[in-house]
C-alpha cells in the first residue's frame, strides 16, 4: 500500500474525473447506440460524430431555470438528487480498476457496495415524496418496493462469489479469479445479479419508477435543470457501477492478456456491459410493477437461495 499511498490523491482525482466524464459521455453513447439499433442517425451534428452533444446537453442543463415547485418540500427536494450521485460515487471507492488502482481497499468492500447502493433508493423515495406530485409519488412508491426487493436477491447472489473467494475484499475477489473467471462456476449468480442490477438502476425493462408512457417521468417529473441532471448522471453512474461490479465479480476485473494494462482491460469489459444495458433498452418492453415483484420473489429469490446452497455444498464437498 505504501507504493499506492504516494499517488493516492491522483487515484481519487483520476477515478472521479474518468467516472464523471464517462457518465456524461454515456449521453452520447446511449443516443448513438439506440439510434443505430433503431435505424436512425442520432445526434450527429455537434462536433465529430456528434460528440459535442455532451457539451451542449451539459450547458443546457446548467442554464435551465432551476425551478422548485411552490408546493414541494424544498429542503428534501434539493437533497434528494444529491443522494443518488453521492451514493453511487461512494460505491466506486471500493472497486479495483487495476491491480493498484483502487480508492479504498476495504476488506468489507462488497458489503460497502451493497450498503451504498441501498442508499440510492432514498433519492427516489425522497424526490418523489418531496415533489408533492401524484405521478412522482406513484413512481417513488414503485421505485421503493422494486429496489428494496431486488436488493435482497442482489446480496444473496453475490454470496456465491464470496463463498468461492473467501473474501469481501473486491481486490482479493479479482485475484481469486486468476485461474477461472467466476462467470463459469457462478453463472446463475451472475444472471441473478445482472437482473437485480438492472432493477437497481431502474433501466428498461425495469424502468417502472419512471415508466414514461404511464407516469410521464415518474419520480423526477417535477425536476428540471441541474437537479434533474443529477438524476440523469446518477442513472448513468449507476449503469457504470453495475457494469464494473459485474466485471469485477464475474469477469475477472482487470485480469486479461498482458499486452494491455489491467485498467484498459477493465474499461473495455465494462463498456461491453454498458452496451448491453443500452441494447436492452432498445429491445425490451416493460413488465407491470406487480409482475416485476412476483418475478422477483417467486423466481429470483428461490433461485438465488438455491445458488447459494449449491455453491456452499460444492465448496464443502471439495474441502472434504
Amino acid at each position: 500500500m505504501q507504493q499506492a499511498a504516494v499517488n493516492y490523491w491522483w487515484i481519487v482525482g483520476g477515478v472521479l474525473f474518468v467516472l464523471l466524464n464517462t457518465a456524461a459521455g454515456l449521453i452520447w453513447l446511449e443516443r448513438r447506440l439506440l439510434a443505430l439499433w433503431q435505424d436512425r442517425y442520432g445526434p450527429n451534428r455537434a462536433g465529430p460524430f456528434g460528440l459535442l452533444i455532451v457539451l451542449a446537453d451539459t450547458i443546457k442543463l446548467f442554464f435551465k431555470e432551476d425551478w422548485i415547485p411552490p408546493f414541494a418540500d424544498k429542503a428534501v427536494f434539493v437533497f434528494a438528487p444529491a443522494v443518488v450521485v453521492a451514493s453511487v460515487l461512494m460505491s466506486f471507492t471500493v472497486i479495483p480498476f487495476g491491480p493498484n488502482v483502487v480508492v479504498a481497499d476495504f476488506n468489507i468492500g462488497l458489503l460497502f457496495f451493497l450498503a451504498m447502493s441501498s442508499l440510492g433508493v432514498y433519492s427516489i423515495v425522497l424526490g418523489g415524496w418531496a415533489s408533492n406530485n401524484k405521478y412522482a409519488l406513484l413512481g417513488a412508491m414503485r421505485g421503493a418496493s422494486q429496489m428494496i426487493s431486488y436488493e435482497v436477491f442482489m446480496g444473496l447472489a453475490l454470496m456465491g462469489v464470496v463463498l468461492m473467494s473467501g473474501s469481501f475484499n473486491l481486490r482479493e475477489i479479482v485475484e481469486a479469479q486468476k485461474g477461472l473467471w467466476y462467470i463459469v462456476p457462478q453463472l446463475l449468480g451472475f444472471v441473478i445479479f445482472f437482473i437485480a442490477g438492472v432493477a437497481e438502476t431502474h433501466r428498461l425493462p425495469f424502468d417502472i419508477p419512471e415508466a414514461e408512457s404511464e407516469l410521464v417521468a415518474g419520480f423526477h417529473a417535477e425536476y428540471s435543470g441541474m437537479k434533474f441532471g443529477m438524476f440523469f448522471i446518477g442513472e448513468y453512474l449507476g449503469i457504470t457501477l453495475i457494469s464494473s461490479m459485474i466485471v469485477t465479480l464475474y469477469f475477472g476485473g482487470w485480469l486479461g492478456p498482458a499486452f494491455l494494462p489491467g485498467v484498459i482491460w477493465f474499461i473495455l469489459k465494462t463498456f461491453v456491459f454498458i452496451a448491453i444495458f443500452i441494447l436492452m433498452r432498445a429491445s425490451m418492453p416493460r413488465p407491470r410493477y406487480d409482475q416485476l415483484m412476483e418475478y422477483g420473489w417467486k423466481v429470483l429469490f428461490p433461485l438465488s437461495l438455491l445458488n447459494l446452497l449449491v455453491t456452499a455444498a460444492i465448496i464443502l464437498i471439495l474441502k472434504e
Partner: protein
Amino acid sequence: MPPSIFQTLCSRFGENIFHEQLTRDETPTVWTPQGKLVAVLEYLRSEAEQPYRMLYDLTAIDERALKSQYNGTGDFTLVYHLFSFERNAFIRIKTALRGEYPTAPSITDLWPSANWYEREVYDMFGIRFEGHPLLKRILMPVTWEGYPLRKEHPARATEMGPFRLFDEKEDREQQALQFKPEEWGLQRHSDDADFMFLNIGPQHPGTHGVLRIILQLDGEDIVDAVPDIGFHHRGAEKMGERQSWHTYIPYTDRIDYLGGVNNNLAYLLAVEKLAGIGVPERAEVIRVMLCELFRIASHLVWYGTFAQDVGQLSPVFYMFTDRERVFEIIEAVCGGRMHPNWFRIGGVAQDLPNGWDKLVRDFLNYFPKKLKEYDKMVMRNGLFKARTVGIGVFTQEEAIDWGVTGPGLRACGMEWDMRKKRPYSGYQHFEFDIPVAQNGDCYDRAAVRVNEMWQSLRIIEQCLNNMPAGSYKSDHPLATPPLKQFTMQDIETLIHHFLNVSWGPVIPGGEAMSCIEATKGWNGYYLTSDGNTSPYRVRVRTPSFAHMQMVPYISRGYTVADLLSILGAMDYVLADIDR
C-alpha cells in the same frame, strides 16, 4: 317472403301508429311517436325475431329550416340507427320532437352506449333526455353558450364577434376545468380507503392526443375512470352544413386522420347514394387499393405506438419507417400523405400515375418479411404477452351492447367485417379472410390487426394484378369536377364543370347513410340533403367515440399500467372521437 320490419312493428304495436319513410339508401325508416319510442326500441333490441342488438348511432336533426317536402312533423328529429347481425340490416327509427328545447326519454337503460350519444345530442341541440344518469356537455366546454348544431347557432367566426379573453373569463374557464369528483358521482373515500384522483392528460405521452382521463385510484388499482373528451372537437358536422358537397371532402380526411381515404370513401358512398351515381370499375378498384394501403399505414402507427405504450422503444421506429414506404406510394398517387383528399364524387381525382404498379409491387415484395420480423419482435415477445394477455377483456355481448366494431369486435370471436358482409366499392370481388380471435383481450385485438395487415396485402395484390381499364371518374353530371377532357368538346360538360366547381353540385334531396369498415371500426356518414349545394345535416358516426366510452367499463379493477395497454390496444384517434 318474411314480413318487412315495418309490417312486424305494425302488427305488434297496431296500425296507423307508425309511418314509413322512403330514403335514398333503402334503409327501412320508421317514424315513431315519442310515447312509443322506448317500447319500440326495447322490442327491436330484445323481443323481435332476429333482434337489432346494436345501437349503431343516435343523433338528431334540427328540422326547423328544412323545406317542407323533406320534413317530418316536428321541430327536431331524433334518429336512432340500430343494427341487426342476424338480419345483416340497419333500421332507422325517427321520432319527431316539438318545441324550442324539447325533451325525450332516455334509452340508457337499454343500451349503455346511449349514454354518450345522448349527451352529445344534448350538447349539440339542447334536447334533454329524461332519465339520463348524467346529462352534461360532452364535446363543448361546459361554459359554452348555445347549442352548436342548432340552425340559429353561427358557424363562421365572422358571425360570432371578435374573441376576447378577459381575466375573469380565463378564471371562469380554468375553474370549469377543475375536476370535482362529486359532479361525476364519484366518492372521495370508501369505508377503508381514501381514493387518489389522478389526472391523465390532456397532455400525456400515453393518451395519443388531447384526451383527458381522470382515474379514481386505490393504490395503483383503478376504481373508476372518467374520460373527458372534446379537446379535439372542430365541429366537423357543423362545417358540413356550410361547405359544398364537394369542398367537404378535405374535412373528412381529418376525422380519422390515420385512415386517410377511408374517410373520403365513407362520405362519398353516402353522397353517391343520394345522387344515384355509379362509380366506374377502375375507380372502385383504385379506391379499394388506396383504402387498404391506408389501413396498413394506420395499423402500423397503432402497432408501433402500442409496443411503445408497453415500454418497447424500438418497434415504433421500424414501423414508422415502413409507413413511410406506404406513404411513398400514396404520395405518388395522391400528392398528399396523411390528408390525401383524393376521392371525388363519382370517382377519384386523377388516374393512377405511370409506374404506380412498380411502387406497389416493390412494397408487396418488401413488407411481408418485415411483418414476420415484427411478429417475432412484438407479438411473440414474452413480456409483451405478459402485459396484454387477459387485460381489458370484454365479451361479444358486451361489445355489441357498447357499440364496439372493427377489430375490437372481431377479437371476441365475432366474424364480422363490413367489407365481406355488406360489401361496398366492389369488395365482394376480392378474396380475403376475416381475421378473428376468441378471448377479447388486448393481445387478441392486436393479433387481429396484425392479421388484417396480411389480408390487406392480399387485397392490394389483387388490385395490382387485376386493375381494370376504363375511366377513373363517372360521367354522371353530378360527378365533381367533371372529366376535364370533355369540357373542351361540348358545352354541357363545360357548364357543369363551371357550376360544379364554383357553386358545387346540387345533390337531390333525401337522406342516405353509409357504413364502411374503416381502419378502426364502422365509420359512416348520415347525410340529409334538401336539394342544395351543401348538405342540410352531416352526421359522422365514428368508431372511436363508442370505443372510448367503454374505457371505464373495461379498465375497472386493473392497474394504471394496464390502462395504457387497454388504450393502446383500442387504437383510437382523438379526432375520430371528437370530430
